[in-house]
């Protein structure tokens, strides 16, 4: 037993260090940094480069990466991103840090290359000394983890309690405005905490090096595991965050002892333990702080500056139905008629994939674009759709159309369940819950033998309809186009309807919406259901495209990249979802056709950077260019007609 406790404490120490850094930065800037794990990875990769590629002394490498590079990187991120997010809405803040999550590791791999990072060696060197404590053998690396954890705990306590910097942090947390008035500079304090936060992330990263393989996903998952501790600390209490980290690590290791090693389902519990705890903490402990805050604000108790990122694209177009369908018809002719004739089979296949992924992306358009909720579980819902279509169509031999609809319904049911437990908790907690649920399902459901089928998935064959076999490239392309259009029509109807208007109201100010008789809670749950249905249908189409329903193709982490792509191009618009889907399928292909292997993470890096840029342009690339395009069109029309310019500045605001 003591072996499990010791290894639990080691793992828990790393969670504790990561969680402390997250809470510190959240306290001072109200920004929850999803990119914390990515920073840990970057610093660890840097340490690896110095210590093992360049063969520098490991302590010197660690000191340089944690004490010099990490704080500089923290300050850089603050200067170029976090500083500008102060007055942004929660959605924009989350999008930007998810961009970091996606971009930093990809950029790191562009810089350091793709060398296999095997045989990673920690601070203690290649053959760490062994110690025997309570009948348990510990190596020096593990002892160092415990030692650093104690040092961080004591150090943080001392900094917060006894130094001027700690006092300033506490003052800024209480009221940035008041501390500005008494002559301190909250921005500089915030800069300091980001430097410190990056150091803590870096320390956690370097300590992880000997314990796990040095790859992005395992780092990100490990840091996401510390989110449970952050929730336990209610994003606020450093001590609780630290203790929470230890508890999560202990729980994860101790549970191993009681799980029979031959049970596949139960084995899934071990890696999911942090996410089980995350969901439990959210349900029973997650405070309603955000809701209380916004209610106080609406009642005039705590007026805050209005968010400065209100999207001009929010303006509903007051056109007749026929006129609004016109651009859609143009698209349909182009996509439906021209593409199949012009493209080769290979590119047509990629275009089909783009349409299918675009369908999944439409679920982001509903949930984030329309309902203003960040759900990080859409890829999991798509995965559930894929699993369901595999079971219904292949295993049960039901007709494909029915199977796809049932797949959508299955995903929608799950979506409603997630919504019911998370919507009342507020924006940030919804993001965390959906992320936790995604990782949980990934560990528990995706791995079930019946679904995973020895890592090749269940075969899914596109249907036949009379003489038409949808396995053919052109036929499948047209099917994908039809399904995308059907889902797009649903989204378009929603945007224009009374429900869409109510969603816009709730997105702007949920409390005030309640006083008008709108029920935000019910609306958000409906939006979850619609988005999940679309994700499920899109997921089953992707399974058809790949001829198999392989759950691991719908990883939660992949979902974050998807989210970054849609955010970059525009979360509000249907064409943006389509363009995002096609970009996601075709762009990596173009890169791999024309650039060497070492550039293969370039698309991911660009998607991540694009999401970060959303901090400045909340509407996304497509809306930005649409405004420019409309401006250009007006100019052209004007030149053609030699008429005086039409004063349209009232209706069309060019992108700032």
């Amino acid at each position, binding site marked *: 037993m003591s072996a499990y406790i010791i290894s639990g404490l080691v793992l828990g120490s790393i969670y504790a260090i990561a969680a402390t850094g997250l809470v510190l930065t959240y306290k001072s800037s109200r920004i929850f940094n999803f990119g914390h794990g990515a920073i840990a990875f970057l610093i660890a990769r840097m340490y690896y480069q110095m210590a093992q590629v360049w063969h520098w002394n490991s302590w010197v490498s660690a000191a340089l990466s944690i004490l010099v590079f990490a704080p500089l990187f923290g300050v850089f991120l603050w200067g170029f991103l976090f500083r500008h997010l102060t007055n942004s809405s929660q959605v924009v803040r989350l999008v930007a840090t998810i961009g970091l999550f996606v971009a930093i590791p990809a950029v790191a791999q562009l810089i350091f290359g793709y060398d296999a990072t095997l045989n990673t060696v920690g601070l203690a060197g290649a053959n760490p000394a062994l110690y025997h404590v309570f009948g348990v053998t510990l190596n020096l690396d593990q002892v160092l983890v415990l030692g650093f954890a104690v040092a961080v705990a004591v150090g943080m306590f001392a900094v917060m309690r006894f130094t001027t910097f700690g006092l300033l942090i506490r003052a800024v947390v209480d009221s940035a405005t008041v501390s500005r008035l008494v002559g301190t500079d909250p921005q500089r304090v915030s800069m300091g905490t980001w430097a410190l936060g990056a150091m803590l992330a870096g320390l956690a990263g370097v300590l992880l090096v000997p314990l796990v393989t040095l790859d992005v996903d395992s780092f990100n998952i490990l840091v996401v595991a510390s989110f449970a501790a952050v929730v336990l600390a209610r994003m606020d209490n450093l001590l609780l965050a630290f203790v929470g980290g230890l508890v999560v690590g202990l729980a994860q290791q101790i549970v191993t002892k009681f799980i029979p090693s031959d049970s596949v389902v139960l084995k899934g519990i071990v890696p999911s333990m942090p996410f089980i705890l995350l969901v439990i903490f959210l349900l029973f402990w997650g405070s309603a702080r955000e809701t209380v805050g916004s*209610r106080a*604000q*609406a*009642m*005039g*108790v705590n*007026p805050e500056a*209005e*968010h400065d990122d*209100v*999207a*001009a694209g*929010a*303006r*509903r177009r*007051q056109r*007749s*139905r026929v006129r609004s369908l016109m651009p859609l018809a143009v698209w349909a002719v182009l996509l439906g008629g021209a593409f199949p004739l012009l493209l080769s089979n290979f590119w047509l296949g990629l275009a089909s994939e783009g349409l299918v992924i675009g369908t999944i992306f439409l679920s982001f358009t509903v949930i984030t674009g329309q309902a203003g909720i960040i759900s990080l579980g859409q890829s999991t819902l798509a995965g559930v759709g894929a699993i369901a279509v595999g079971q219904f169509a292949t295993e049960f031999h039901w007709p494909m159309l029915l199977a796809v609809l049932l797949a959508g319904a299955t995903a929608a049911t799950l979506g409603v369940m997630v919504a019911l437990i998370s919507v009342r908790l507020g924006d940030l907690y919804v993001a965390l819950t959906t992320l936790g649920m995604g990782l949980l399902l990934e560990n528990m459901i995706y791995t079930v033998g019946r679904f995973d089928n020895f890592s090749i998935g269940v075969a899914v064959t596109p249907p036949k309809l009379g003489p038409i076999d949808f396995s053919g490239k052109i036929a499948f392309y047209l099917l994908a186009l039809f399904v995308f259009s059907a889902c797009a*029509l*649903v989204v378009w*109807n*929603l945007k*224009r*309807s*009374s*429900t*869409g*208007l*109510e969603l*816009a*109201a709730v*997105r*702007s*100010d949920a*409390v*005030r*919406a*309640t*006083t*008008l*008789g*709108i*029920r935000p809670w019910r*609306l958000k749950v*409906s939006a979850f259901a*619609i988005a999940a249905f679309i994700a499920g249908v899109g997921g089953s189409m992707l399974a058809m495209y790949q001829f198999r329903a392989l759950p691991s193709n719908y990883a939660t982490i992949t979902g974050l990249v998807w989210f970054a792509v849609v955010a970059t191009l525009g979360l509000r618009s249907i064409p943006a979802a389509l363009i995002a889907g096609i970009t996601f399928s075709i762009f990596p292909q173009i890169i791999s056709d024309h650039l060497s292997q070492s550039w293969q993470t370039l698309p991911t890096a660009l998607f991540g950077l694009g999401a970060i840029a959303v901090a400045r342009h909340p509407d996304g690339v497509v809306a930005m260019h649409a405004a420019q395009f409309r401006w250009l069109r007006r100019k052209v029309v004007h030149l053609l007609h030699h008429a005086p310019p039409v004063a349209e500045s*009232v*209706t069309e*605001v060019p992108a700032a």
Partner: protein
Amino acid sequence: MSDSTTTATPVAEARGISVSFGGVKALIDVDLSIPSHSVVGLVGPNGAGKTTLLGVLSGLTRPSTGTVCVGGVDVTGRIPQDFARRGVSRTFQHAGLFAEVTVRDHLVLARRIVHRHHHVLTDILGLGFGPQSADENQVVDEVMHMLGLDACARRLPSEIPLGTRRLVEVAQALLFEPKLLLLDEPSAGLDTGETQAFGKVLAQARDRYGFSVLLVEHDLDFVLSVSTLLYVLDFGHVIGVGAPREVLDTAEVRRAYLGSSAAVPA
């Protein structure tokens, strides 16, 4: 105004209301009654509990003791939506409009909440809308026109001046066909001319639709020019109630609110 004498069931009535936030008692045993077709002023120094009382009357704040009746029905402890459905509309001191909804759509939204029983499912299948009904357009346009909002129909709240935003709030509240309109400091941030214009539009709307108003306001000239009944709050207590000028003249009110030597504005 003669209608202040109406003695039918009050539009809204609060009895023995107390509210505390933690240890702070914001309201202590407050009684307030709003007769139909009246404009009731509610004044008091900062922190007297005026906004809290508005919160109680619109269902946002639950009183720890006391009852709230709207239209003669006890609605204590109900959710804000129930208050809205019974004809209570309110405006806010801050954050009054939906940042992502255009001026005209604020009105359309209100109209649809009251009159159109739509459903999410019919909405996404494209059955829940169609050309906006002629009736909806007519009502919305009439209110827009009466409040002089025609020019900014397609603007977002961030693109129009504060005074206009206040009017949009009132316009939206009117679309609910309210029996009681709660106004939280409508003149804050407006200059004298804008305030007068606001008062004029409010009077027109009241003549047309016949609702009662509870007006929380710091601008005493404005309050005196429009209200028929005045409540004065101080430290959570009602310290005066009655005809506006008479109430302001009582010694207690003068001491608490205006300072002992201050004169009531002419």
